[in-house]
């Protein structure tokens, strides 16, 4: 999967460009966050899931999760209405290297049980 991401960015012989690389995320690490969506932003240059994640003690930590753009995401089944405020979701993400509560989406499990990836080449 990492190879595919790199192929999209580097594109082999053809010069391909992308908005940014993924170096700010730890692509070797995956963590799972489950909670309540506070907003789903169908925007450019990226879509975002904002989510409140409770821990065992009940304390809530807020996470910002970056996705592809709407153009990229629609290729893996996403729609602007796939998530809404109040939905329960489980997200597998590559966390930010800074340790801040943010990351890059791998897979989202939606309230209806569907698992969606993060665009073509980034399927669950």
């Amino acid at each position: 999967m990492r190879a595919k991401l790199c192929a999209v960015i580097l594109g082999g012989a053809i010069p391909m460009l992308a908005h940014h690389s993924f170096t700010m995320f730890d692509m070797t690490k995956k963590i799972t966050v489950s909670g309540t969506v506070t907003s789903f932003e169908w925007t450019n240059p990226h879509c975002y899931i904002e989510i409140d994640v409770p821990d065992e003690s009940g304390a809530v930590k807020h996470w910002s999760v970056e996705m592809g753009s709407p153009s990229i995401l629609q290729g893996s089944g996403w729609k602007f209405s796939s998530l809404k405020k109040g939905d329960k979701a489980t997200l597998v993400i590559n966390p930010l290297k800074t340790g801040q509560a943010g990351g890059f989406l791998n897979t989202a499990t939606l309230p209806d049980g569907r698992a969606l990836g993060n665009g073509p080449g980034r399927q669950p």
Partner: protein
Amino acid sequence: MILRLAIGCLALLPVTARAEASRPDFTGVWAIYRGAPAPPAPGPLVLKPEYAKIYDAQRAAQAEATKRGEQLANASVQCVPYGVPNMMSVAVYPVEFIQSPRQLTIISEAFSEVRRVYLDRPQAPIDDVAPGYYGRSVGHWDGDALVIDTIGIKPTVAGYRGMPHSERMHITERLKLVAPDILHDQIMIEDPVVLEKPVTYTTSYKRSPNYEMVEFVCDNNREYVDEKGVVRMRVKDR
């Protein structure tokens, strides 16, 4: 019979009209494509020594940053459009061509960039074109290939593979169908100030007949560049 009739009708047309009728129509949406027939490999990028030094230093700095797990700033991280020629080769984003006898309009989905290529009109003197992201493009038909001539790209617009370029950069493209639904855009860049010799590469597209272009307005950019010039993502507290 219908074919014979069509050929007969074509024969009745004046020569110029016949040429127009046989021209390919690029109108439609085209996705970046990596399949066959593959375009030729890109040619070498050979810069004049003083510019090679700057370019190599920039690449070395990015390579060092990558080793540290960081990305250095570039224009698109800040949602600045790509301009010509890079908007023709943006990762997974398609381009749309709208062709009329007088103009080819090219729209790239990424950043909703628009180029206008004026057909069968003379190019302006380079000193009369205000430097910008798209410059001024004119095109003419060379058989079934459309040859596009572009000048007036300002030096702050990122060049091919991030190469530096001057206001004298001159881009010649040949748009040609190499198979019924496969289009190649051969892009040759000349720059008498920066390049030792022209560099040529080709972007390949496949027709996407049912694709509807997605709007792209960069109004939620969470990426920012910190004081060290490194790209970071803004997170929200809630």
